[in-house]
């Protein structure tokens, strides 16, 4: 019954999405139309949420008469991973996608009260159109509730790499972020239809962009850390196509986040903001397509299915094509709003947007370039880290410098007086750069520049607070300061780990010692151990640098359902960085391959990511609180 109830809810929700689209675009009295659309959107969101819960329930009970459960779960799996198994596969993850889309539509219907009625109705119509396509995809090409004629005796299990707390949170967080951007997209479409692109639209769009951006930031940061400790390769970013697929919406959302502020505060950058809102969600859809169709060679090996790929591609072409066609036809009527001068907050934010857009273009071209080349010439090639680092990183550093400048400028026109405050941070940055140049010749110039820019930005990010009464400073300003400071922290981690990481690959017998960086690692023993659904060989390492001894236990694990080998790195986090150890294969004569890394400051990368998200959360909270207070006063 559970599966059938879920499926029925899904069909009903799909019908309501159709109704929502129909009601929104039928001519008639706007007032009633908008009420009906609101109600429909809310019920639709509730129904699809119910369907998702039914799937989670089927996984929680390991109902092996459901095909999806039998293929992806196992009765012996820990319960947390049973639940996570509901979205650790194609059908389940697409249901999650549609669920978030539906719930976003419902929340838009509930919370957006201040927007122009017509724009709002059109936006809900656009949201309904989006949902409808993905409902069709789910029901016709990826039914998660399909039954088996005869229940399976036992499930096939979940890929052990995915049996990790990281998987429980990483995909849903990213999905929430991806799809949160759909609301910005729908609002942009609605505003283009009615022609009302103004500061009210920006204010309605802003919390969605901010919320989605926070979740994308968290999702990418968590995904990066998960890959770092679970895959056992010791790296935190690989410029893999699927990673890029998550980075591109983030870059677009970051640009949008800043331009939407210009539109809200100054009623400027109208067409550009609308355009960015469309680009951001388009990037989410392209990302989903790249991931789900499996057409790009990636470490994220998802199941490849040309029929499903075609289906999503048709949806993508339809939605993105229609949105940009609408933009081409309607944006001519928009003027760009009040002018501003070259030295102004607006100009700095335009600079931010240009740089982010160019970086987005670089990542996009690099990700799809092999595909274009093969389509035109038939040659196969791959684009890797050297391209992305050489082309995108210098621009990112310029952008980081601009972060120090922009918040110090006034809207519209500025004398540049407050820029003098940057003198001390600039001096700090230059000093750091000079010291690094002398102390570490070689190593390349980019990481040194990165550390110098980070050293400049760390104090500079706090300058907007200088001379202000902190008690009367709005929470959003603190949010901005913390997010910008987070950028400096992450940049420090990236550059420092790039410059100072030490790596040792050795074949050692138990009893022998190895040295990596400041650490002396004593290889104690290798013993077999067992977990709930795996067995493992576990090494015991005693690591010391000066003071006390830390014990690390890296494992080589063997899962039986499905049969898979994984490496479980053991990581010791100290104040200055991380010691990262991996147990490899036997190397003969009683020796074992050991891979040891000393990664100074590497933790700052994810700490920075968390700070950026925290800054976003403070800004969102600050706006919500202020909005409430304003409503109470009026």
């Amino acid at each position: 019954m559970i599966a059938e109830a879920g499926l029925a809810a899904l069909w009903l929700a799909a019908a309501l999405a159709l109704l929502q689209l129909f009601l929104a675009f039928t001519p008639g009295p706007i007032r009633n139309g908008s009420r009906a659309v609101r109600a429909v959107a809310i019920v639709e969101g509730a129904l699809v949420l119910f369907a998702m819960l039914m799937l989670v329930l089927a996984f929680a009970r390991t109902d092996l008469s459901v095909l999806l459960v039998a293929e992806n779960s196992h009765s012996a799996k820990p319960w947390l991973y049973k639940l996570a198994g509901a979205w650790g596969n194609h059908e389940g993850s697409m249901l999650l996608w549609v669920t978030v889309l539906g719930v976003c539509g419902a929340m838009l219907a509930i919370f957006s009260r201040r927007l122009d009625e017509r724009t709002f109705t059109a936006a809900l119509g656009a949201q309904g159109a989006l949902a409808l396509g993905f409902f069709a995809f789910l029901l016709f090409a990826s039914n998660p509730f399909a039954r088996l004629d005869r229940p399976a005796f036992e499930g096939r299990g979940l890929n052990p790499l995915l049996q990790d707390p990281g998987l429980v949170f990483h995909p849903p967080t990213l999905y929430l972020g991806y799809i949160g951007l759909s609301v910005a997209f729908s609002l942009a479409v609605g505003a283009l239809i009615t022609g009302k692109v103004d500061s009210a639209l920006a204010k309605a769009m802003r919390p969605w962009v901010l919320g989605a951006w926070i979740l994308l930031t968290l999702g990418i940061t968590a995904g990066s850390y998960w890959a770092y400790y679970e895959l056992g390769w010791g790296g935190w970013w690989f410029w893999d196509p699927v990673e890029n697929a998550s980075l591109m919406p983030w870059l677009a959302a970051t640009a949008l986040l800043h331009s939407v502020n210009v539109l809200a505060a100054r009623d400027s950058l109208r067409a550009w903001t609308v355009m960015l809102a469309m680009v951001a969600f388009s990037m989410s859809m392209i990302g989903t397509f790249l991931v789900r169709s499996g057409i790009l060679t990636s470490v994220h090996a998802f199941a490849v299915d040309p029929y499903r790929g075609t289906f999503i591609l048709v949806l993508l072409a339809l939605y993105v094509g229609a949105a940009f066609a609408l933009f081409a036809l309607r944006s001519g009527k928009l003027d760009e709003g009040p002018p501003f001068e070259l030295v102004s907050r607006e100009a700095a934010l335009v600079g931010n947007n240009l740089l982010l857009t160019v970086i987005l273009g670089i990542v996009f071209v690099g990700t799809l370039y092999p595909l274009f080349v093969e389509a035109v010439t038939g040659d196969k090639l791959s684009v890797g880290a050297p391209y992305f680092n050489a082309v995108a990183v210098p621009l990112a550093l310029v952008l980081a410098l601009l972060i120090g400048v922009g918040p110090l400028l006034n809207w519209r026109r500025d004398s540049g007086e407050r820029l003098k405050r940057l003198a001390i941070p600039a001096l700090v940055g230059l000093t750091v750069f000079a010291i690094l140049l002398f102390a570490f010749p070689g190593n390349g110039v980019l990481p040194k520049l990165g550390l110098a820019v980070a050293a400049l930005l760390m104090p500079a990010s706090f300058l907007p607070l200088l001379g202000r009464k902190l008690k009367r400073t709005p929470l959003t300003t603190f949010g901005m300061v913390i997010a910008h400071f987070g950028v400096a922290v992450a940049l420090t981690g990236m550059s420092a780990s790039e410059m100072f990481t030490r790596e040792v690959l050795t074949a050692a017998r138990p009893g022998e010692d190895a040295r990596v960086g400041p650490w002396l690692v004593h290889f104690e023993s290798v013993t077999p151990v067992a977990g709930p659904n795996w067995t493992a060989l576990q090494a015991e390492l005693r690591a010391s640098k000066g003071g006390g001894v830390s014990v690390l236990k890296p494992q080589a694990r063997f899962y039986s359902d499905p049969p898979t080998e994984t490496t479980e790195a053991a990581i010791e986090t100290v104040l200055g960085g991380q010691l990262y150890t991996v147990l490899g294969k036997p190397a003969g004569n009683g020796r074992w391959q050991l891979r040891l890394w000393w990664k100074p400051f590497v933790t700052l990368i994810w700490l920075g990511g968390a700070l950026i998200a925290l800054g976003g959360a403070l800004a969102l909270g600050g706006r919500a609180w202020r909005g409430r207070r304003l409503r109470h006063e009026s």
Partner: protein
Amino acid sequence: VKGLRFLPVGIVAVIVAALVWRLANPPDSAIQSQMIGKPVPQIAETAALPGKPAFTQAELRDGRPRLVNFFASWCVPCIAEAPVLAELRKQGVPIVGIAVRDRPEDVARFLSEHGDPFEAIVADRESKLQLAFGSAGVPETFLVDGRGIIRMEHIGPIEPDEVPSLVRAVEAAR
């Protein structure tokens, strides 16, 4: 400037076209041998089982195109491929075999159970020939033309519906 507003639509169209092309032409992850278009390597190995002739590099240049089939008695897909090889033989395609990492008695048992389509078989006990041909596994089949040049590589078992095109390819290599 007015036309510029249609630029995003154009970009989307180009991207969608490229993605459609990719869906229609899925990426081929198999690694093709680098030996295609080159002469067959030196064959110093011996016969795979007593009473069955071996073959040499020189014999592959005698003007008759052939299929060179890498197989093994321990390879399950090779069992599936055996009837297809028999069919090719029936249609007049000369086939020689290379038994990879195998023992004579196992090869003999394999051939008696699943049929022997081979004119000659050499033993490749340490996969040296396999490496020299640029083959990555069993079964794999190479088309060698009358002048001893490797013309094509077929990775994995030959399927029944591939027989006609393979027969034509052998004809064309004459």
